[in-house]
């Protein structure tokens, strides 16, 4: 007898298929084809069907057969978990009266610091001799006219100290004045700058940042503030750190404050005990709490707080997907990560940003077998081929991984996917221990997106791309500098739109990154995100499956899953696990597929084994 069977693995992000021909149960199967496509919809729902069909069709093409020739399709049994991610800022800066402008225009004019009364450029003529003024120049005043007006005012004895410009003409105005004065430009809402108020303008020297206005005592010195008032300007000073130019205006009722949003508490209900942790304490406190309570049974957030909303949203999403009542959705794992995200300051005049604390949360809930059974049934109807549920995902992954050349039991695998980080350990007697943890590739993308404030909602997910590809800076029309500082030359000139930009080095060529961040900053954020999610979760997962809970007792670890293809992750893991004397390597399924297709391959192999045994 000869039959053709296909294994399908529906993951959070990709759907993978392996097709094999079986001539007898005694000889190993002959693998004909494999494929990998994006999962459609949330894992475990009927909306996965189009992706599964596409994947089957591609694998069949790869194998040179038709879908109808397949005798049996195997689906991984009840994907035990699905994950969701959320992020909330826990602090926010609000300016109730417009009293601060701080930003990094491309080219502010002049340099130094100036203090004076804000005066509209048309009022300069009525300024008194010796009066210190800060000129406010709306768009519509040509830089030459503005410069002439200021020059004449200076000659008339008015002490012009600096200026606030709406257009991008700061440099041009500053260059046309008899003395060097600071000009902050590109201030969009210049008409909202209060006039006749005391203000300070600072522009840092070339290649330097401002010093006085990002120092609370600096502001206090300039404005002659009392200690109580100085306390009020701390959020302003904080928001101005690291900028090239800034303006601070003293308005009588001016009030800037950092509001701490009540972040709330998380109640971790575990097997051993229940712990309540403050989200304010950051990710570490949450993870410590997790370690104390034992195996997690459920998590709730205090109602009416940010975290409460976050947990409920996860629960709602999961309830929608699994069609279980919301009460029955239990959160089985969470991963909390601290981060600093740029947030627009409410009430700012030039779209100022302030770095605010935030906590990212990945949560995971258990699903039941019903879902996959329903999916199998629907698929069978759709393609007219018998569909069966194969074995448990972790066992399948190990079976598949064992096709890697040079690998044998005892073996631990780390499945780094998009939605969850899974680990499984197979001992000599073929017993399998497994664990699924919240937080993986999608969480890394979220962290990168939020920390770098990347645009969302576009066709291409920039954060996802940054996660996947190394960076380079396009230094001339003919060469780029890679993130490791090596230089690569090109024979043909590059696209001028790439010039001077940070770009991703992909198979398809260079893709410009639409941000102002430097290569170093993006690289740092990217690696830090991977460290905080993948490294932390890998250690957590391995500790759970390791004999006696000690990673040292695991000798070999193979990395599988989509994130295993990451260009730097395997090395990062290897560095970390070397501390435990553990050997880590990326799997190479069937000696040619790399880290993917482990579960799909495992499904076919385990079917064979079962048939042989039964």
């Amino acid at each position, binding site marked *: 007898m000869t039959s053709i069977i296909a294994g399908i693995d529906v993951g959070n992000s990709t759907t993978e298929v392996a097709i094999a021909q079986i001539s007898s149960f005694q000889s190993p199967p002959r693998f004909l084809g494999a494929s990998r496509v994006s999962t459609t919809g949330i894992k475990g729902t009927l909306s996965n069907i189009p992706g599964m069909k596409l994947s089957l069709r591609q694998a069949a093409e790869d194998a040179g057969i038709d879908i109808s020739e397949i005798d049996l399709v195997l689906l991984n049994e009840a994907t035990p978990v699905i994950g969701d991610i959320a992020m909330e800022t826990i602090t926010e800066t609000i300016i109730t009266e417009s009293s601060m402008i701080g930003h990094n225009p491309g080219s502010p004019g002049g340099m130094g610091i100036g203090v004076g009364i804000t005066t509209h450029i048309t009022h300069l003529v009525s300024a008194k001799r010796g009066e210190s003024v800060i000129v406010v120049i*709306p768009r519509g005043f040509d830089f030459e*006219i503005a410069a*002439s007006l200021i020059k004449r005012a200076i000659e008339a004895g008015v002490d012009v100290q600096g200026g606030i410009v709406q257009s991008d003409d700061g440099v041009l105005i500053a260059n046309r004045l008899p003395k060097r004065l600071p000009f902050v430009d590109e201030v969009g809402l*210049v008409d909202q700058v209060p006039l006749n108020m005391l203000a300070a303008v600072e522009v840092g020297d070339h290649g330097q940042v401002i010093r006085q206005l990002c120092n609370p005592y600096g502001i206090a010195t300039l404005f002659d503030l009392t200690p109580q008032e100085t306390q009020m300007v701390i959020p302003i000073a904080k928001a101005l750190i690291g900028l090239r130019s800034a303006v601070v205006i003293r308005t009588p009722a001016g009030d800037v404050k950092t509001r701490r949003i009540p972040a709330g508490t998380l109640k971790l209900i575990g097997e051993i005990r229940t712990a309540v942790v403050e989200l304010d304490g950051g990710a570490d406190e949450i993870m410590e709490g997790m370690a104390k309570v034992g195996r997690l049974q459920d998590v709730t957030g205090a109602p009416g707080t940010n975290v409460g909303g976050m947990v409920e949203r996860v629960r709602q999403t999961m309830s929608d997907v699994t069609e279980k009542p919301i009460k029955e959705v239990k959160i089985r794992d969470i991963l909390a990560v601290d981060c600093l995200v740029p947030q627009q300051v409410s009430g700012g005049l030039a779209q100022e940003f302030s770095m605010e604390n935030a906590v990212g949360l990945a949560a995971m809930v258990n699903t039941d077998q019903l879902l996959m059974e329903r999916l199998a049934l629907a698929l069978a109807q759709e393609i007219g081929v018998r569909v069966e549920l194969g074995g448990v995902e972790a066992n399948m992954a190990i079976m598949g991984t064992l096709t890697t050349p040079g690998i044998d039991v005892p073996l631990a695998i780390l499945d780094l996917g998009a939605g969850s980080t899974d680990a499984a350990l197979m001992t000599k007697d073929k017993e399998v221990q497994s664990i699924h943890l919240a937080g993986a590739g999608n969480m890394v993308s979220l962290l990168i997106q939020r920390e770098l404030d990347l645009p969302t909602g576009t066709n291409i997910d920039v954060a996802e791309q940054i996660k996947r590809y190394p960076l380079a800076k396009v230094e001339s029309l003919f060469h780029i500098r890679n993130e490791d500082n090596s230089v690569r030359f090109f024979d043909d000139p590059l696209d001028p*739109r790439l*010039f001077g930009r940070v770009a991703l080095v992909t198979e398809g060529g260079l893709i410009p990154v639409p941000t102002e961040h430097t290569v170093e900053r993006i690289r740092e954020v990217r690696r830090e995100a991977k460290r905080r999610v993948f490294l932390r979760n890998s250690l957590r997962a391995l500790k759970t499956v390791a004999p006696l809970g000690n990673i040292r007792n695991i000798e070999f670890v193979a990395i599988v899953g989509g994130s295993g293809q990451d260009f730097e992750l395997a090395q990062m893991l290897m560095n970390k696990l070397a501390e435990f004397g553990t050997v880590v390597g990326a799997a190479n399924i069937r000696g040619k597929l790399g880290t993917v297709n482990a579960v799909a391959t495992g499904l076919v192999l385990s079917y064979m084994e079962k048939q042989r045994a039964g």
Partner: protein
Amino acid sequence: MAPFAQERPCIHVAFLDDDDSLYRWVQIGAEEEGVPCKLVSERADDVVALAYAASKSSRFNIGIGISTSEVVLHEMHMPPEQPVVAFKFSGKADFFCRLMGANAARMIIRKPLRFEDDPSPFENETTMQASELPAYTPPPLQQATKTETESPTLTIDPAQVAKIVAVVIQKLQERGLQ
């Protein structure tokens, strides 16, 4: 080749025709980025070749060629027939010349170039409409430092004031009274 002492590195700007009135805008664009530029005379049949010739004579290897309809940025290492960027004037010659001046400078300081379809190219005041100006009503001017007199009861349009002031300053400069 001029002696070293005279050959300060500059962006070279060449015109296909005699009219070099647009040079001022290129200069402003380059000044914003802090790079000097210089008007040179090169001979060429078309504007691309002209820009290339200008780039070859520049110690920065960057040249700009301008015709009546187009402004072209060239770099010496590029293939002569392939300019770095070219903008066709679509009624806004001064805007494109300023943009190209800034781009030439940005080639040198290694900043990303700006294109007309960028979300944030700078505004050129000649393209501004009075209606786009912020609503602002300054109090009437009382000082006699200006020659024109305005009725204090009128609401003053800042754009108009700016234009009048420009004319006055120009007049003053012409008479050398400033």
